[in-house]
């Protein structure tokens, strides 16, 4: 599970459903969740989680797309398998991993140090924990 530290900038709720606006490494992010029954408020620091298989990659984006989280990264390293490719990405001071098919990696001609955009749907992003200010 990839981990990203972020700050909550807004909370919108409707019944049991919430959409959070967040800020991490100079990027605006959004997260969709059901029943946030823990003490979360604007300004809270949270640790976000996302599975490697839920991070898509793009070299550039021309059209408007619905994916809420578009993070500017660079390729730290590539591990090419028989069918899959595991890409280590640098996003500010954190490393993320994205697992894509080898065919995609080859057609995108991915190389180390290339700039990339990591794409994460708001529903694929979860809150692992709230960073308690008093314990920092």
């Amino acid at each position: 599970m990839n981990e990203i530290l972020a700050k909550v900038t807004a909370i919108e709720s409707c019944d049991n459903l919430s959409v959070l606006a967040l800020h991490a490494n100079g990027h605006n992010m959004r997260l969709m969740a059901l029943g946030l029954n823990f003490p979360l408020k604007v300004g809270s620091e949270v640790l976000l989680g996302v599975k490697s298989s839920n991070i898509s990659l793009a070299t550039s984006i021309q059209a408007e797309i619905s994916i809420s989280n578009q993070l500017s990264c660079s390729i730290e390293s590539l591990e090419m398998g028989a069918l899959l490719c595991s890409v280590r990405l640098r996003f500010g001071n954190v490393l993320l991993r994205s697992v894509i098919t080898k065919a995609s990696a080859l057609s995108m001609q991915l190389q180390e140090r290339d700039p990339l955009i990591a794409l994460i749907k708001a529903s694929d992003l979860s809150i692992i924990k709230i960073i308690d200010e008093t314990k920092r």
Partner: protein
Amino acid sequence: MLNIEIQKTLQGSIGTMELDVKLSIQEHDFVAISGASGSGKTTLLRILAGLEEAQGEIEVGGEIWLSKKTALAPQKRGLGFVFQDYALFANMSVEENLLFAAKDKTLAKHLLQITELEELAHRLPNTLSGGQKQRVSLCRAFMRRPKVLLMDEPLSALDPLMRTKLQHDILTLHKEFGTTTIMVSHDPSEIYRLANRVIELHQGKIIQDASPKEVLLKTQGSQKFSLTGELLEILKTDVIYIAIVAIGQQIVEVVIDEEEVLRFEVGERVQVSTKAFSPSLSKI
């Protein structure tokens, strides 16, 4: 309003145990009592019914059922009791079983109508299925229009389809009669469907008192689909790793990263979680 404050020393499998329960229940509430076996659930129910002695006080709507001076007899407590094993009179017909509790033919007919048992009114209990017997037992409990209904794992002996039917009947009767119902149950689906409050007992003490969703929904951060299992094996496939986890009677596979492999040990208890958006449902 039910006010309960009771103590009793019980002989459990691991020595003596103090049952010590202090509890207020609002009128018309449906309360589920859960907890491991031997935690005192059934004893608490039997004390409420007056079938077992205890120290303390029980007050129901201003009436004293138990105090230092008095212990109201079970039949004077204005309650209904549904047991797991039906407890019907074998030599009496369905209707006679109901009329034995109270001689009110109109009410008996009405109850049998609600629970769709009318056609079986003249049958003897041993000619009925388990589900039918339990419906008769439920009807009988309502013959005295009880203020308080006590049920001890009423559906545990029934198949899933019959459980759903009986859950519906229980809820219909609970609402129609405005009863305050207290039910011992282990079954999460039953607790979720029926109860508006869950009391969890552990070694005779209340350890949780909240809504069914708060008690039953296991979460991991914002991940609402969370199950506990045992890590059986981690396999490397191509550039990814697959963790094999046993959950209940099933085995599931979870794809994990290289960094995570080092954090886990085969054989340890793990929580498998995902967001409520990810899993999909299909009919079996």
